């Protein structure tokens, strides 16, 4: 039997992996601050010795992440924020390293720590931000947090800390296994004073549902062609066996 059937088989498996990448993008179409993942197929030639080089396998690879911006959603909540421009919010990942996110639905923990929606401490000028008991917390355009301390009059305000907004080079960014974005070298980024945030807004995911669905359909057809190839090779083989039958 033609061993080419393994090429079609490997290709089918890879297309299923690629489908999973797009399925994950679509599953997160409504996740605040989610960044679309790309996928691509590359050729891996396995031709040894002389003869016609017809054995090229396709391998699906992660081709990075689309870091373009989602759209702004007006929520009106005091602790919702979206960074303007190419900025990111610096947070502390569970392993203690610095990571970046665009999911700005913040909250305050019982201990007074400023957390993101998925319970990661938001970083300020010097590490995680602690917010004293306050009647009102306001996020300024440059990330400055102003509070009206508990029990104080409206005109008694105090500044607590400043949310660390960073603007790393896109080429240096990579998405980790926890869905957080980090610098490739694992270093910390320097805060960028020029970045602005919008309080009362959230950034939607940057998933384009039309794109993803089209990719999924095109992959599905490609998968069918590969199955067809397997079928054809099987037919070739059985026809050959029939012709060569001696009886």
């Amino acid at each position, binding site marked *: 039997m033609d061993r080419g059937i393994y090429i079609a088989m490997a290709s*089918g498996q890879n297309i*299923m*992996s690629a*489908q*999973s*990448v*797009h*399925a*994950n993008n*679509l*599953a*997160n*179409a*409504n*996740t*605040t601050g*989610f960044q679309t*993942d790309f*996928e691509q197929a590359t050729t*891996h030639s396995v031709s040894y010795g002389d003869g016609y080089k017809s054995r090229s396998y396709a*391998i*699906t*690879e*992660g081709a*990075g992440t689309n870091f373009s911006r989602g759209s702004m959603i007006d*929520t*009106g*909540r005091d602790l919702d924020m979206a960074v303007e421009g190419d900025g990111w919010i610096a947070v502390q990942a569970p392993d203690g390293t610095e990571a970046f996110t665009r*999911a700005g*639905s913040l*909250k*305050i*923990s*019982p201990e*007074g720590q400023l957390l993101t*929606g*998925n*319970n990661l401490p938001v970083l300020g000028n010097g590490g995680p931000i602690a917010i004293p*008991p306050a*009647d009102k917390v306001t996020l300024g355009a440059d990330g400055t947090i102003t509070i009206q301390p*508990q*029990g104080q009059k409206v005109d008694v305000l105090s500044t607590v800390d400043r949310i660390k907004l960073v603007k790393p080079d896109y080429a240096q960014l990579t*998405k*980790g*296994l*926890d*869905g957080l974005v980090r610098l490739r070298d694992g270093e910390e980024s320097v805060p960028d004073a020029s970045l602005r945030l919008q309080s009362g807004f959230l950034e939607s995911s940057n998933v384009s*549902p039309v794109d*993803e*669905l089209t990719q*999924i*359909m095109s992959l*599905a057809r490609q*998968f*069918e062609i590969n*199955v*067809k190839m*397997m*079928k054809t090779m*099987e037919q070739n083989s059985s026809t050959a066996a029939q012709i060569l039958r001696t009886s």
Partner: protein
Amino acid sequence: MSQALWISKTGLSAQDTRLATISNNLANASTVGFKRDSVVFEDLLYQIRRQPGAQSSQNTQLPSGLQIGTGVRVIGTQKEFSAGSVDVTEKPLDISIDGRGFFEILLPDGTAAYTRNGQFQINAEDEIVNSRGLVLQPAITVPAEAQGVTISSDGIVEATIAGQAATQNLGTLQVTNFVNPTGLQAVGSNLFVETAASGSPQAGTPGTQGLGSIEQGALENSNVDVVEELVNMITTQRTYEMNSKVISTADQMLQFVSQNL
């Protein structure tokens, strides 16, 4: 089996949870003192299929690996404690809090619950109770012969009694606040109970120490923004549809294999 099936399944169940939250918000759009919930999503962990930088031969490395996300999940709901609009009803025992804080209600088991629903009535024992008959704390008794009840903005309750020139002081309403109201647990019937996340209750005189003042003859509407909920419903529905489309596509792929091979 195709992983895409399971990934899209997480998408479907997350959108389903969101729709449940939206429908609860809409169902309570005219519930006095209701605070709307919003759902927070998080992408699930990523799996490495092929490690970037792994050796593809002794001298060459794979330029980029393949890591596949495993879907989405609902990480939690957030209660939104912004103020609702105020309806003036002119009923003497309709009270609203203008600003932060809650009324304390005594539950049948002796523990305290908190509410922003200020629709109060008087029960057979002349106590001020909420619509479910639970007593407002601190308990205030309105004498049967009282002609009218007046509540000042700082919570002093007074009654006018027939034949008496001076009003009779019945007690003082208190307003209770929490450091982190978002951490309160909603238990239904417009009531919230204290949790470790909310911090301990701090009762005080209305209008002082950052607490809201009392408004008599007015009720606080729910803070549900109907238009926003409907827009959220549309995005939820479309995302749901697209995830189910992925499931049917993945299903067709598998079907094609089993039929053709």
